[in-house]
Structure formats: C-alpha cells, structure tokens
C-alpha cells in the first residue's frame, strides 16, 4: 500500500487548523446577535454546509460532462465522491436549519419552498446513488451517473431561484430581504468576518474530503483487482 501523499497530509492538517480557528470565531469572536441570541451562531455553519452541498453537486455535474466527453474513469470517481460529500453537507444544512428554526420560527419544519427544494435536491442525489447501485456494468454505471448528475443539477438552480420567485419565510442575509421573511438580521463586520472565514474553511474541508475519498476509491479498486488475481491464480 502506498503511503498518503505529503500534500494530502498537509492539506488535512491545514483544514483541521482552519476548522479550529473558525469554531473559535463562530463561538467567541462573532458578537451575540441582539434579537435571536446564541442560536444565531448556527447560521455560519448552516450557510457554509449549504454552499458545500451546492458546490459538490456542481462538481458532480461538471465531472459528469467531462466523463461523457472524454470517457476517462477518474472523472466518474470525482462525480461519485462529490455526490457522497454533497449529500452529507446538504443534510447538515437541513438539520442545522431545523435547529435554528425551532426557536425562531417556532417549528422544526415548515413547508416553505426554500426548505422543500433543498430537500428535493437531497432526494435527487439519493436517487443518483440508487441508480448506480442498480447497474452492474461499470461503464454503463458511469455513463448513467453522468447523465443523471447533469439532469439533476438543473433542479438546483431552482433552489436558489425559489427565494426570489416564491414568497418565502426563509431570510436572505446577503442582498435585499423579502418582507415576509422571518429571522433576518444585518451582519456586523465581525459577523461578516466569521461568516466568510467559515465559508473558506468549509471549502477547504470539501476538497480535503474529496481527495481522501478519491484515494480510498482507488485503493478499493486495487484491492478488488488483487482479490481477482488471487482467486483466479
């Protein structure tokens, strides 16, 4: 087994350090929000994980397109790894939103368009994994995954559009707010710094996880090949 590449090791440590700093910034550096209190601190990681989810699904659609054009298997590996990470982070996004909504909207869940589209987005990629599971031929699995990854991503823009088209209860912190939104607030400079820093941290976290996942997949394939060799020889 080949050792972990030095760059990956360095990236992992860097991400760990960034995460520690952003935890400090979110919990202590950023001031307490006047109306909502400490629960507002969920916002930093809530938006960051939503961002990573969207980024991951964008990468999947992109890698799918490249795979269809070139037919190189490593792009399919990127697409799959990215979907798995995206599902986890979108889930974190939905759950952390729920935790915030309980005291602010007085409910865990409401059938708001923004919430529903985020959940549908999650379901699309769960369906993506189920599709892959149902196909044995690796080439076909990769092709279908790419097609579904591209098609599925077309529904994600709706998630972001929805906040403008529909009347929504979900606040928009960046840009103009809908008058029906509840729980909106203006960021102080310190809050903005903490927010931008957690976005950066989560982006690093995404790429670190992606790299680890790709390495794991390559190793798994090698184990599979060795097993075949032993069984046939």
């Amino acid at each position: 087994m080949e050792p972990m590449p030095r760059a990956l090791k360095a990236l992992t440590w860097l991400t760990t350090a960034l995460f520690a700093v952003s935890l400090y910034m979110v919990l202590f550096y950023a001031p307490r929000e006047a109306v909502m209190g400490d629960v507002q601190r969920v916002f930093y990681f809530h938006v960051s994980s939503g961002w990573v989810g969207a980024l991951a699904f964008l990468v999947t659609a992109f890698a799918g397109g490249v795979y269809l054009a070139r037919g190189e298997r490593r792009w399919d590996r990127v697409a799959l790894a990215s979907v798995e990470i995206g599902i986890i982070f979108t889930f974190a996004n939905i759950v952390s939103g729920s935790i915030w909504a309980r005291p602010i909207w007085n409910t865990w869940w409401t059938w708001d368009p923004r919430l529903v589209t985020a959940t549908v987005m999650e379901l699309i990629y769960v369906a993506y994994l189920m599709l892959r599971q149902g196909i044995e031929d690796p080439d076909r699995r990769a092709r279908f995954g790419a097609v579904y990854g591209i098609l599925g991503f077309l529904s994600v823009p709706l998630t972001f559009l929805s906040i403008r088209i529909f009347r929504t209860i979900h606040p928009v912190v960046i840009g103009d707010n809908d008058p029906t939104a509840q729980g909106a607030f203006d960021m102080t400079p310190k809050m903005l710094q903490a927010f931008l820093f957690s976005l950066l941290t989560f982006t690093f976290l995404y790429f670190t996880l992606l790299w680890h996942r790709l390495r794991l997949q390559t190793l798994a394939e090698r184990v599979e090949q060795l097993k075949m060799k032993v069984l046939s020889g």
Partner: protein
Amino acid sequence: MPESTPAFRQAESIHDARDMIQRRPTPAYGRAIAAVVWKDLAAELRSRELIGAMLVFALLVILIFNFALELDVRTRQTVTSGVLWVTFAFAGTLGLNRSMAIEKDRGCLDGLLLTPVDRSALYFGKTLGNLVFMLIVEAIVLPTYSALYNVNLFRPALLGVILLGSIGYAAVGTLLASMAVQARTRDVLLPILLFPVVLPVLVAAIKASNAILQGFEPSEIWPWLNLLIVYDVVFVAVAMMVFDYVVEE
C-alpha cells in the same frame, strides 16, 4: 489541381452525406421521428395494453382522492389542479415504464439502434409517442372529471398548461425510463429517478393550472408559465444531447 481528383470528390460527397444525416434536420430526420411514433401507435392500436392500463389507473387515482380528500364543493376549488396533475404524473410513470420495457424485453431497442438514423431522432420519436399516450389519457380524464365533479375544465389556457406540462414530463420521463429499464431494480427505479427531477415542471404546471382555475390575474399566472416553458426547453435540449450515452452499448 487536387480538388478535381476522384478521391477528393468522393470524400467530399461522403462528407456532404454525413453532414446531411447528422447535422441538419432534413426530411429524412422528420421521417425517422414519424416512423418511430407510428410504430408505437400501431403497436398500441393492436395490443391496447398501455392506454387501457393508464386510463383505468388514472380513474382509480381520482376515485381514491375522492375518498381521501372528501372532494366537496369548497375543497374542489383549491385542490382540482393538484389532483389532476398527480393523476397525470402517476399514470404517466406507468406508461413510460411500459413503453420502454417493451423495447428492451423484445430486443426492439437494439433493432432501433441499428437503423442508420441519428439517435436523437429515436429519442424524439419515443418522446412524441409517450406524449401522445399521455394526451390521450388526459383527453379522457378531463371530461370525466368535469362531469363527475361539475367543474368546467375546458378553458384554452388550462389546456395549454396541460400540454406544456405533459411535454416537459414526457421529455424527462422518456430519457429516465430508458435508463431505468437497463437497471436491475427497474420497476421501482423510474418514479424515484423521475419525480425529484421533474418537480420544477410539476410545480409550475400545478401552480399555473390552479391560478387559471381560480381565475387569478394574468400577472399571477405568467411567472409560473415562464418557469414551465424554460424547463421544457432545458429538459428537451439536455435530454436530446445525452440520449446517445444512455442507449449506447
């Protein structure tokens, strides 16, 4: 002069022929689409297994809704568009699955793929065929619903929305059904793949139909109609481009 050599002229004419088949929509392209649609309709006319099943299923769904929602006069006002679209969507899934499963099981898909036409012509042919089946079912369900619940559904705007919604549904559905039938878990897979992806079309169609039925202002209807048209165009274009990779062996 290299232009006048026979080899060059031959190469040029081959290039022209390929150009004609692959790039421009020629009469041959239209004929190929029409042939696929005609094949589906003729097969259906002789066996009558698809539309019959879709229709009975659609009526059953409406019956179940009748009990589940207690469709009295006041509820009817607000839920009619939802009931109709859920019915169309469920019946549509049934038809899509069957229409692609027939192709796969009897080896017809391989035969179609061997024909020397552009793959996108096959896609459009199958999509149009599925669209026709959906429209036939809708053409029977709508008057039945109108008669049963005493709602006038024959408004040109509503029929337009139903046509647009069905186009989007058939466009994505045909692509995903041709993927689903090649998977091990094909019977359960199609709805799981289709519903989340086609949701923008369904939501826009339901909201637009509801706005029309309730007699809202056109300014309330247009955003949904625009969304519906945009997704129709996007889905048709993308499905046409990627269909090749789905049927490739």
